[in-house]
C-alpha cells in the first residue's frame, strides 16, 4: 500500500476552458431546446387556434373563444387586438408551420384585370418599390423582418418603437410595431407601404386612409427614417401615396423616386388591413414602370408560352389559390397515378395554343399542358387575377392610357359635373 497522492492544483483556475466550452455548449443547447419547445407551444396555443383555415389534420375543432378571451385579458391594458399579439409573438419563431402561418398574414393585392369604378375618388396610388415584400415586427428591443414565404430576412436593431435594446430602456413589452414593407436591396432600405400596428396601437381595423395618415405622421418622428447607426441597422422610408386622380396617377407612373419601381399599387381608401388576397388592393404594371411585366421561368427567361401554377384537388380539379377557387381544368386519374401526384400538390402548366376561352366574361376552358411539380418554396397556387393579368399582358394589355382615360370616363365625369352643378 503506497502513500496516497495529495497534490492539489497549484496556480490553476478552478475549471478548465475546455470544461467551460462544454458547459456553455450544454447551456446553449438547453436554451435552444427550451426555445423550440416554447415555439411549439406558442404555435399550438395562440396562433393556430386563431387561424380559421387550420389544416384538415386538426382532429377536434379548436376552441377559439377561450383563446380570444385569454389573449384579450392579457392585452387589455395595451389596447391591442389578439391578432397583432400573434404576429408579434410569432415574429421570432422558426419551424415550417410558422413560415406557412406568416405567409398568410400579409395583405396580397389582386392583379388589375379591369379598372375599378370610382378610381379617382376611392383609391390611392403609389409606385411600388422593387424588392422583397416583408412584415417588419419590432418588439422587446429587437426587430425582425419576415419575407412573403415566412422566412426571416433580417434580425436587427431599429429606431422603431421597441425596435432596439437602447440604454434608455425603450424596449417595454407593451410597445411594438408591425409594418408592411418592401426591402430594397440597392439602397438597403425598408420602404414602408402599409402599417398594421404602431407603438402598441392596432391599425388592423382602420381604413387605408387612416393608416397612411398615421404612417406619415409617425414614421418620421420615430427616427426610423434616419441613416443607419449602432441602434438602427437599416433605414426606413415612407413611399409617397397619391390620390388616384390624373395628376396623382401620372406622378406615380412617371415621377422620380429613389428606388427601382415595380409597378403601381392601388389601395381602396376604405379597406381595412385584410390578410390574404383582396380585390381592395390592386397591382398593375407595364414595361415603363417595371422590369418584370411578364413572368420569367426559373432561369430568368420569358417562356414562349405562359406558365401557371395550380393546385390539384381531391376531385382531380386544378384550381387557383382564390377563395372560392377558380377551376382551370381537370386531370384524368391515370395521369395522376402515373406521375405520382397527390391532392394538394402544386403543379406547373403551360398554356398551349388554345389559350383561354371565355364566355360571358367567365372562364370556360383553358388549354393546359402539364410540365411538372412546382418549386418546393411555393406556398400557394397562382391567383385567378394573376393568371388573367399575365394572359392579357401577352395578348391585349391594359395600358396606362386606359387607366388615365377611365379617370375621365363618364362615371367620373358625372360625379364631377354633379359637383359643379351643385356649386352653380
Amino acid at each position, binding site marked *: *500500500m503506497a502513500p496516497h497522492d495529495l497534490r492539489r492544483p497549484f496556480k490553476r483556475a478552478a475549471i478548465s476552458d475546455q470544461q467551460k466550452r462544454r458547459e456553455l*455548449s450544454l447551456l446553449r443547447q438547453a436554451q435552444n431546446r427550451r426555445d423550440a419547445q416554447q415555439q411549439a407551444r406558442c404555435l399550438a396555443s395562440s396562433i393556430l387556434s386563431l387561424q380559421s383555415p387550420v389544416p384538415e389534420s*386538426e*382532429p*377536434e375543432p379548436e376552441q377559439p373563444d377561450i383563446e380570444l378571451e385569454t389573449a384579450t385579458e392579457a392585452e387589455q391594458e395595451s389596447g391591442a387586438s389578439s391578432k397583432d399579439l400573434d404576429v408579434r409573438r410569432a415574429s421570432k419563431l422558426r419551424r415550417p408551420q410558422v413560415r406557412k402561418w406568416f405567409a398568410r398574414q400579409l395583405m396580397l393585392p389582386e392583379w388589375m384585370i379591369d379598372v375599378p369604378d370610382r378610381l379617382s375618388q376611392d383609391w390611392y396610388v403609389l409606385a411600388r418599390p422593387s424588392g422583397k415584400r416583408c412584415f417588419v415586427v419590432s418588439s422587446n428591443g429587437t426587430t425582425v423582418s419576415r419575407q412573403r414565404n415566412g422566412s426571416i430576412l433580417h434580425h436587427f436593431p431599429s429606431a422603431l418603437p421597441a425596435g432596439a435594446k437602447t440604454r434608455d430602456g425603450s424596449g417595454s413589452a407593451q410597445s411594438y410595431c408591425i409594418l408592411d414593407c418592401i426591402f430594397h436591396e440597392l439602397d438597403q432600405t425598408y420602404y414602408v407601404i402599409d402599417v398594421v400596428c404602431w407603438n402598441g396601437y392596432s391599425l388592423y381595423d382602420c381604413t387605408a386612409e387612416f393608416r397612411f395618415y398615421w404612417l406619415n405622421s409617425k414614421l418620421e418622428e420615430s427616427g426610423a427614417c434616419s441613416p443607419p447607426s449602432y441602434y438602427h441597422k437599416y433605414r426606413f422610408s415612407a413611399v409617397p401615396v397619391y390620390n388616384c386622380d390624373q395628376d396623382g396617377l401620372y406622378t406615380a407612373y412617371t415621377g422620380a423616386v429613389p428606388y427601382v419601381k415595380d409597378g403601381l399599387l392601388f389601395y381602396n381608401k376604405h379597406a381595412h388591413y385584410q390578410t390574404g388576397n383582396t380585390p381592395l388592393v390592386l397591382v398593375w404594371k407595364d414595361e415603363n414602370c417595371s422590369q418584370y411585366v411578364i413572368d420569367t421561368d426559373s432561369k430568368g427567361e420569358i417562356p414562349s408560352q405562359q406558365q401557371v401554377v395550380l393546385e390539384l384537388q381531391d376531385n382531380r380539379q386544378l384550381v387557383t389559390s382564390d377563395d372560392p377557387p377558380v377551376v382551370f381544368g381537370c386531370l384524368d386519374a391515370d395521369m395522376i397515378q402515373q406521375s405520382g401526384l397527390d391532392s394538394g400538390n402544386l403543379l406547373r402548366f403551360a398554356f398551349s395554343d388554345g389559350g383561354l376561352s371565355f364566355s360571358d366574361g367567365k372562364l370556360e376552358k383553358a388549354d393546359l399542358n402539364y410540365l411538372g411539380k412546382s418549386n418546393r418554396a411555393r406556398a400557394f397556387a397562382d391567383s385567378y387575377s394573376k393568371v388573367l393579368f399575365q394572359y392579357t399582358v401577352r395578348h391585349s394589355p391594359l395600358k396606362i392610357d386606359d387607366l388615365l382615360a377611365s379617370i375621365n370616363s363618364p362615371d367620373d365625369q358625372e360625379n364631377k359635373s354633379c359637383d359643379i352643378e351643385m356649386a352653380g
Partner: protein
Amino acid sequence: MEVTQVLLNAQSIDGSVRKNAEENLKQFQEQNLPGFLLSLSGELANEEKPVETRKLAGLILKNALDAKEQHRKYELVQRWLSLDANAKSQIKACLLKTLSSPVSDAGSTASQVIAKVAGIELPQKQWPELIGSLLSNVHQLPAHAKQATLETLGYLCEEVSPDVIDQDQVNKILTAVVQGMSGSEGNADVRLAATRALYNALGFAQANFSNDMERDYIMRVVCEATLTPDVRIRQAAFECLVSISSTYYEKLAPYIQDIFNITAKAVKEDEEPVALQAIEFWSSICDEEIDILEEYAGDLTGDSEVPCFYFIKQALPALVPMLLETLLKQEEDQDQDEVAWNIAMAGGTCLGLVARTVGDDIVPLVVPFIEENIAKPDWRQREAATYAFGSILEGPSPEKLINLVNVALSFMLSALTKDPNSHVKDTTAWTLGRIFEFLHGSAVEAPIITPANCQQIVTVLLQSMKDTPNVAEKACGALYFLAQGYEDVGPSSPITPFFQEIVQSLLTVTHREDAGESRLRTAAYETLNEVVRCSTDETATLVLQLVPVIMLELHNTLEGQKMSSDEREKQSELQGLLCGCLQVIIQKLGSSESTKYVFMQYADQIMGLFLRVFACRSATVHEEAMLAIGALAYATGPDFAKYMPEFYRYLEMGLQNFEEYQVCAVTVGVVGDIARALEEKIVPYCDGIMTQLLKNLSSNQLHRSVKPPIFSCFGDIALAVGEYFEKYLMWAMSALQSAAELSTHTVGDDELVEYTNTLRNGILEAYSGIFQGFKNSPKTQLLVPYAPHILQFLDGIYIEKDMDDVVMKTAIGVLGDLADTLGSHAGSLIQQSLSSKDFLNECLSSEDLMIKESAEWAKLAISRAISV
C-alpha cells in the same frame, strides 16, 4: 502442464518465447479454468518455486478476479461464483497458507488476491471463516506473516463495503489493527502495515468513533504513531489523521489542540513527505468547513447536518504564521516542473483555503508579512510575499481588500516587467490574474481597472507574454480574467481599443517555439476564446477576420504525413485547441443575425476542415470538432442538410463511442442541434440515429450520465420530424416507460437523487417533444394509450417531493403538452390526476418564473382539453 516454466517464459526477454507462453496460459485458462486457477494458486503457495513465478502466478490470479471495466468485472465475478466449490476452497487454502511465507513478495501478493476473493464472496455471505482465521494469524505468527495478514486486512477493508461485515468482526479487526500500530509492537514493518491497514479500516469505524473510550484510544495510538522514529510510519499515521479529518470532522474537537501541536512540529522539522501530510490535514479541515459554511449560507435556517466547529478560525493566530513560514521554502525552478509538489506549494495552497474559510480575518495576519518581504533583495522573500498576497484574494470581502489591491497594483505591474527573478514574475502574473478574477467585474462596486491604468495593464501583460513560457502562461491567464471581468459590460468595452493588439499577441504566443512548455499554447488559445466570448459588437468585424486565420491554422495541422504516435497526439491536441477556438467564434458570431450572415460565407470551408479532422483518426471522433459542429449546425439552420451525407458516419461513430463517454454525450447533444437545425430534413438519417440511441440506452457498458441526454434527444428528434416519429414511437415509449418507473422513486445519497432528477428531466423532455411533435397531426390518437402511464409518472414524482426546480418546470410543461395534444381524449384522465390539481396549483404559486410560466400554459391547455 508445467506452469512454472510457462510463467518463466512469460517473463522472458525474447518476445517470441514470451508470446508463446502467453498463448499457452490463455489456452489453459479457456480450456480448464478451475485447473488453471488451482495450478496458479499452487505455484504461489509453493516455497520451492522461484519468487518471480510465484508473483506472476498471483498477479494472473488477481486479474482473473477483477477488471477495471464494469461489465468485464461483473463477468469475472460470475465466473468465480459458479466455479466448483471444492476447487475454490483449495485455492483459498493455498492463498491463506502463502500469507505466512518467509518470502515477503509472495505473502503480499497473496494478501491482494485474498482481498479480491473476499470482495466477491463476503457480500454473498460466503467464506465466513476468513476474518476469524486472519485474526488468529495476527496473534500467533512470526513478524513477516503478521505483516502480510495486516496488509490483507487493509486490502480487504478497501475492497468490501462496511455494511458487509458485522460490527462484531469490525471490532475485532480494529482491535488487531490498532494493537499492531501501538508502541508495544516492536517490529517496524508490522507497525507500518497496521497503520496503513487502519487508513482503509477507518470507514468501518463509525460505531467505534461514537464511543468516547474507543475513539480516545484510536486517536492516541494514531497520534503516537506520528512520533515514531520510522519516517514511513509517521507519514502513514498523518495520512490516517487526514482521512479522520474528513470522515470524523465532528468528533475532532477534543483532539484539535494536540493535533495542531503535532502538525506544527512536523511542518517545522520533519522530512518533507511527513510535513506535506501535516499541512494536508489543515487543508482538509478547510475543505470541510468551507462545505459546511456554504451549506449555512445556502440555507436561511442556518442548519447543517454537521455543525461548524470553527477550528480554522480558532487556530488562525498560530496557523497563519506556520503557513507563511513554509512559503519561504521554495525550490528553484518549481514553476517549470509540472509535477512539482513541495512544502511551499502545499503551504501556499493551504493559506488560500484558510482565506476562503475565514474571510476578512486573515487579512491583518498576512499584510505585515507581505509588507516586510515584498521588496527584500532575496527573491525567496519577494516571491513568498507575492504568493501570500495572491492566496488571500479569494475569501475576504472586496471592501476589505480594495485599498490594499489599489496600492499593490502598480507595484505588481512594475515587478512583472522589472523583477530579475523569473519565479517572482511567475507568481506576480498569477497574482494579477487572481486580482482580476476576484476583484474585477460588474459585481465589484469600485473598479480597480480604470481608463487611467487599463492601457498600462494590457501593455504589461502583452509584454510578459514574451517572457519565459511559465511567466507567459500566467500572463495569458491574467488576461483571461481581465477579459472575463468585462463580460457583461454592454455595447462598449474598455478592451475594444486593444482588441486587435491582444489577439495578435496571443496568436504570436501560439507560434512560439517553446509554446509546448508550461501549457503555454493551451493558455494562449483559452485566453483568445475568452477575449472572443466577452467581445462586443464593436469588435465583431475583428472576430470575423479571425475566422480565416484560425481556419488556416487548422488547415496546417492536416498537412503532416506519416507521423509517429507522439506527433499524432500533439496534432490531435492542437486540433482540439483550434476546433475549440472555432467553436467559440461560431457561437459568438452565430448569436447575432447580422454577424451570422457574414460568417456563413465560411461555413462550407469550416465544415470541410472539421470533416478532415475527423478523418485523421480511424476509430474515434474528436470531441472538440464535434462540439464545434453543434455550434455550426445551430448557426447554419436547414442548410446544414448539405453536410449530412458526409458527416453522418462520424456522427454515428461518436454515438458508438462508449469508452470515451464524454464524446458520446457531446455527440448526443449535437444530434439535438442538428434536429433543430434540419427539422424535417433530418428524416433520412433518423433510422440510423434512433437505432443507435436505443442501442445505447440498453447497453450496460455506457456511462449512465449519457442516458438522460439521450432521452432529451428523443424529444428533439420528435419535435423536428413530427408525426414521422411514429416509426420509433413504440420503442421510444417503452424505453421511456421503464426509465420512468425506475426514476419515480429515489433511494440513496444526494448524488443519486441528483442523477435521478437529471434522468427525470430527460424523460420529461422526451415526452414534451413527442407530444408537441404530434400536435396537429392526424396521428395524435397513437399517443392516447400512453397517457395513463405518463400521468401516473407525473403524479408519482410529485408525491416523492424530491424533484428540483428544473424537473418541476419540465414536468408541469408535459402536463400541458399532453392536454394540448390529446385534448378531449385525455380530459377525464387529466381531471383525475393529482398533477392537474395539487401539483398544478403548487406550480402556479411558485416563485420561480419559469415554473410559473409553464404552469400557466398547462392550465390553459387543460381548460381547453376539458371544456370540449
